């Protein structure tokens, strides 16, 4: 029965392993949830990318008109230095997302490699598990502060922090998948055919552990944005005048009684981003979940 319910890779022109996986992931975005999530994200990202043309004055255009209320020219009003909050919020989303998009894949690659390192030697695998425990237990904000103190404020320390904090998120998942895949019969079958460990890892274990990792990617990406926000919120992240969602929240909250839109803008944007990534993760989960069903 499961055969017929299966909607995974189908015979078609391109038969590559990678291509078929990509097709499965792409199919997630044909689901309503995936579509909606992607649409929200696209609007935000496109607006961010187009901001130089939409607002030729630049995000740092200061003026004497500080803390104006809502108007046509300034949909979210202006901040304490007379800058347009709406534009800064859009721009900030781009910055925050950008940091997460750079940092999280680094964490994903490292975490996955560490999670799969049990393939090379079981002992190495156990050591990596201990490292995950350590990273998970390490107080995140303290880690962030230490990194900021070491490399200075700015995007680099944010990227480092977010990558480090993402490692166990992927690593544990990869480790779990690795352990269960390793016990699967097709992996044993490959072993019995004397196929090399590297090849088993690349062709058999990795592709079959990738699905949960890809689903996780969406969630960790938004988590990265939130980490950025948290670190910048306490003044250690991106530094003004460059806006990020966290720095905007940081200053917005100080003007909360005078200009509520200041903090509301980035907050709403954060929630929208969270919603969008969550929807996409859901859709991916569903798309690959069907796939997993076909495995049984």
């Amino acid at each position, binding site marked *: 029965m499961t055969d017929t319910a299966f909607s995974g890779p189908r015979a078609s022109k391109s038969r590559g392993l990678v291509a078929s996986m990509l097709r499965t992931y792409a199919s997630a975005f044909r689901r309503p949830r995936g579509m909606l999530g992607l649409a929200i994200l696209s609007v935000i990202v496109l607006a961010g990318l187009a901001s130089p043309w939409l607002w030729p004055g630049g995000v740092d255009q200061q003026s004497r008109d500080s803390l104006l209320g809502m108007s046509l020219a300034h949909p979210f009003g202006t901040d304490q230095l007379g800058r347009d909050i709406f534009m800064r919020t859009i721009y900030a989303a781009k910055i925050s997302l950008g940091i997460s998009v750079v940092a999280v894949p680094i964490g994903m690659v490292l975490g996955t490699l560490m999670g799969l390192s049990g393939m090379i030697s079981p002992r190495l695998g156990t050591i990596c598990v201990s490292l995950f425990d350590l990273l998970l*237990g390490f107080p995140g*904000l303290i880690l962030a502060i230490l990194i900021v103190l070491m490399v200075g404020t700015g995007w680099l320390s944010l990227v480092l922090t977010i990558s480090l904090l993402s490692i166990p998120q992927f690593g544990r998942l990869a480790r779990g998948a690795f352990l269960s895949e390793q016990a699967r019969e097709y992996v044993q079958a490959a072993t019995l055919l004397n196929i090399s460990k590297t090849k088993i890892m690349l062709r058999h274990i990795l592709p079959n552990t990738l699905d949960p990792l890809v689903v996780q990617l969406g969630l960790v990406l938004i988590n990265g944005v939130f980490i950025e926000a948290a670190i910048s919120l*306490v003044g250690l992240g991106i530094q003004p005048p460059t806006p990020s969602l966290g720095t905007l929240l940081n200053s917005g909250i100080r003007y909360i009684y005078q200009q509520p839109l200041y903090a509301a803008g980035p907050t709403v944007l954060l*929630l929208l981003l969270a919603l969008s990534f969550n929807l996409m993760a859901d859709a991916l989960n569903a798309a690959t979940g069907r796939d997993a069903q076909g495995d049984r």
Partner: protein
Amino acid sequence: MIRFLINRLPSFVLLLVVTSVIAFALPRMVPGDPAAALAGSDATAEQIEAIRQQLDLGRPFVVQYFDWLGGLVQGDLGTSILSGRPVAELIGDRVESSLELTLVAATLMIVIGGVLGVLAGTKQKNWIAGLLDGIIGLLVATPPHVTGLVMILIMTLVLPYWPISGEASLISDPGYGFQLILLPALALSLPQAAAVARLIQSNMRTVAQMDFVELARAKGVPPRRIITHHILRNSLGNALIVIALRVGELLSGAVVIEAIFARNGLGQLAVAATQSRDYMVVQVIIVGAVAIAALVNMLSEIGLAILDPRIRLDTK
């Protein structure tokens, strides 16, 4: 259980040793030193150097490390460089605040997560199910600090005189203390509660598919009883683990929440100590945090063993 603990001991100790090395080394790799923090912003280079001499910071790191470790083993956490107080006392002063927050948040998490999870895990009308899924999804994705900010935003508009921040002991001033702790605890617990809810939901759905539920139906057990007596109990097993892990996360998530809501918990102590290079405090807090996380992890496994007769009776 004891066998289990003994089995885990070596890796636990190893984890702590590695953590202690990192906790010791990392803060000291950071530029700037406690002497500068002590000397203040108007200090001259000579003044800073004089303080550095007084503080005896010039000893080799290895010696300092083993001094500290030796103290730790004997239960001496060391002395804060900045305030001159024993680290144990500094931490002791903050423990009540952190414990109160964690406990209230954990309670809220379990209650909210449980209710949401059970509602979402049982059959509901379509729109209710969708709404529940939406709420849970959004809460899961939104971290405490954002939830906290949203709540501050709402509270300032709706109840402008509700005390938003600060703290009062729940023991000595329960009424006011509770007012103050409600928002931060709620902010802290909501994302975790949603995660718990999601887990309970998916567990319940999985368990509902299980054969023993089918047998219960075939026995003629009414649907409500199936949920309470069969599905729920069997769904809570690994929810317990997650709840335990989440309590650990509550502890670490508390740092930012403490900052936003002006609570003087351990998180704030850690941040302040890190900023001012009070190595002695920072290193103890890091080791403590990792140790607690690992312990919580272990306890949750024990908890699972207690809950599940298959494990409980086999490891006797």
